[in-house]
């Protein structure tokens, strides 16, 4: 396969120069008479040679093994499949054996003809083990025969594959050379190609979404078959239980999610925004060049570290402040444990700082200087300029950064597990422990209880509901951003 790819690459490369040369020749060697830059004719050739050929190749690569497999499977008599096993498993032995023979042939231990003539009588398993190929069980004649047929068919398939793909590449080359002339709109062709790629990239988001929804939808339906949806959406308590009959309501979890995210944003947005403003507007180049990447490290520290930090450092500190009674700093007794909404929110906020600061900094930096000049010229102070001219101009981008941070806050798990406690409840007191949807997804999915029980399946329902919910929030955000967007210049 590798030689084939190299050949296509060579054809493409050759096509580049041929098409380019041909275009130039048709323009009497003067690139100015061409519709497009000469290199575009080259790229067009590369595209026409490589894209169809690689497309066919990849389809072939997907289809051939299936075809070979199914025809080999047909060769295996039903009686050859040991009881309790499946043809599928037998096939993996076949493949392993075929691979082993390939390895032996390419190592020169055995000639290709001999490999095709081997009989099961020889102690193949031991012999293969010597060649470094491990086979699970003893080799039956059926398996050996199938392996040989497998090799044979694969070899034939590969042969035709090479020929056909080469022909397609060649045809692409010829066609492209024929249409190459001075008037040919090579640039438009290449750009359409690129645009197709861009569209493909953008649609990946849709595919991912479809994938996510599909991978959760069926289990969610299963869940609702086992558990009343009214309890899930409108119940008030979350209390999973082994013996079934659990209370599984999303509301307390949702409350915790929103509350913790809110506190995290309350920390991250002002700090991040002010840091961004300071970095892009006040700080000297040296400070900026050091402080910004340093802050970015905050985004890269594994969240489990933040979790431990919350549990072991921030939590006890908060207890010291709010919960030690007369021994404490405030002399109040509001907080009983180290884990609370505030603990998790504060620490998560720290993690989110760079999400807001770095991106906003880049965006603020991109606001044209002439706008600042205009404001300074009116006698505005630097901070007035920033607040009233620069930030509004950068607002669409900043909103994007904040949304990103909010998204991260909603999706974060580890910090909440360790920092927020695991008690599902609806309460306004930030010093109490609560929990979030994501942590419940993880724990319901990784636990001990029966995977077909509502206690496990609820994870999928939670995931899907969160998905739909954030979708709603995003639609709302899009609407708001649209409404307040200001375009400058």
């Amino acid at each position, binding site marked *: 396969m590798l030689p084939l790819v190299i050949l296509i690459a060579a054809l493409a490369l050759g096509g580049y120069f041929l098409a380019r040369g041909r275009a130039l020749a048709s323009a009497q060697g003067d690139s100015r008479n061409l519709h497009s830059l000469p290199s575009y004719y080259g790229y067009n050739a590369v595209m026409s040679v490589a894209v169809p050929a690689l497309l066919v190749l990849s389809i072939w690569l997907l289809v051939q093994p299936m075809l070979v497999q199914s025809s080999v499977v047909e060769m295996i008599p039903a009686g050859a499949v040991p009881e309790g096993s499946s043809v599928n498993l037998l096939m993996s032995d076949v493949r392993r054996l075929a691979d082993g023979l390939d390895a032996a042939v390419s190592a020169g231990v055995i000639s290709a003809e001999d490999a095709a003539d081997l009989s099961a009588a020889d102690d193949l398993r031991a012999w293969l083990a010597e060649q470094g190929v491990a086979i699970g069980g003893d080799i039956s004649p059926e398996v050996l025969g199938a392996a040989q047929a497998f090799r044979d068919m694969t070899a034939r398939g590969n042969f035709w594959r090479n020929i056909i793909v080469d022909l397609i590449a060649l045809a692409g080359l010829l066609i492209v050379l024929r249409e190459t002339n001075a008037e040919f709109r090579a640039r438009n062709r290449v750009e359409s190609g690129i645009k197709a790629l861009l569209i493909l990239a953008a649609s990946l988001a849709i595919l991912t979404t479809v994938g996510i929804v599909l991978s959760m939808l069926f289990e969610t339906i299963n869940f609702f078959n086992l558990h009343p949806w009214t309890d899930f959406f409108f119940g008030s308590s979350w209390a999973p239980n082994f013996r079934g009959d659990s209370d599984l309501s999303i509301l307390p979890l949702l409350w915790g999610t929103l509350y913790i995210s809110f506190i995290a944003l309350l920390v991250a947005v002002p700090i991040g925004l002010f840091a961004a403003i300071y970095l892009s507007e006040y700080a000297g180049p040296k400070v900026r060049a050091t402080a910004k990447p340093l802050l970015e490290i905050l985004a890269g520290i594994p969240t489990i570290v933040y979790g431990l930090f919350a549990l072991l450092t921030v939590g006890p500190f908060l207890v010291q402040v709010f919960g030690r009674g007369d021994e404490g700093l405030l002399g109040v007794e509001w907080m009983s*444990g180290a884990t609370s909404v505030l603990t998790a929110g504060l620490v998560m906020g720290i993690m989110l700082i760079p999400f807001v600061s770095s991106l906003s900094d880049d965006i603020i930096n991109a606001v044209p200087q002439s706008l600042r000049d205009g404001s300074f010229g009116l006698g505005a102070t630097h901070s007035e300029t920033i607040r009233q001219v620069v930030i509004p101009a950068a607002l669409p981008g900043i909103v994007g950064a904040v949304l990103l941070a909010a998204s991260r806050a909603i999706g974060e798990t580890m910090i909440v597990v360790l920092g927020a406690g695991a*008690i599902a409840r609806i309460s306004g007191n930030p010093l109490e422990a609560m929990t979030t949807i994501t942590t419940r997804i993880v*724990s319901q999915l990784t636990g001990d209880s029966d995977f*077909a029980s509502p*206690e496990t399946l609820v994870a999928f329902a939670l995931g899907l509901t969160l998905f739909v919910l954030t979708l709603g929030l995003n639609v709302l955000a899009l609407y708001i951003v649209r409404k307040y967007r200001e375009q400058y210049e």
Partner: protein
Amino acid sequence: AAARDQVQVAGSSTVLPYASIVAEAFGENFDFPTPVVESGGSSAGLKRFCEGVGENTIDIANASRQIKDAEVAVCAENGVTDIIEVRVGYDGIVFASDIDGNTFEFTPTDWYKALSAKVVVDGEVTTNPYTTWDQVNPAFPAQPIQAFIPGTKHGTREVFEEKVILAGCEETGDLEAFAEAAGGDEKAAEKECISLRTDGKSVDIDGDYTETLARIESNQDGIGVFGLAFYENNTDKLQVATMGGVEPTTESIASGDYPVSRPLFFYVKKAHIGVIPGLKEYAEFFVADEVAGPDGPLAEYGLVSDPELAETQSVVADETVLGNGS
């Protein structure tokens, strides 16, 4: 896809340490590659186990509980019919508190009274009024009740509910009182016993024992539930409490004196034996005397070895599958 060479195991994080000790020794002593042992929980492991037969599915699922009928059914639906169940030993469950704190000698009654949502006081069912341990049992110090118990997703929780809370409920006679109140419904009464208080005195830990330990470190009044092996590796930070007067050790658990323990299992896909190199060898090695026996590395690490190990060995050797009378 190229043929897979190594055994793939997934499942319980409780079994993981033992499985990894075995996998490591297996890799060292055999010519097969070291098996890959994933964690992710019994449930997740069994789910993947039951996804079907074939190279892209796992060969073994570790579990800290027995496979459920519903799961066997799903397995069968997907073509995973022959499952070999292997019990590797027992996991002791201990109660431990901060090394510098008070010492406790518990009985199930104490735990029941401390954690149940409702208790019977003076013949009346009331919301649990106790806030310190001395209210539960005058022998205890006046330490605030703060328990870190496994979350409801852990098999350990089930054992804890069965063997501690429910036992305590029975001992105190509250079970009867509840049954009476529920009009003789035993089930409802049991449920009443094991529904725990939600006022923050009892905190569910969904993570691992390290999390429980960290919480005790950040709250000295806390008493947590741990695995025996975990406790034995952290004796410098934790002191263990007795239960019913028995101190938890591998011996007292193996002999059945210490009441709170649970069996650990792994499940092998019979169809993969003979196909995946080293699968059977791994399973046999796991339950071999020199590994899982009372002097083997597993016991040394904290596994309570199975007194009926020989039987288990023959199950593996004969590839006896579930449901075939064994």
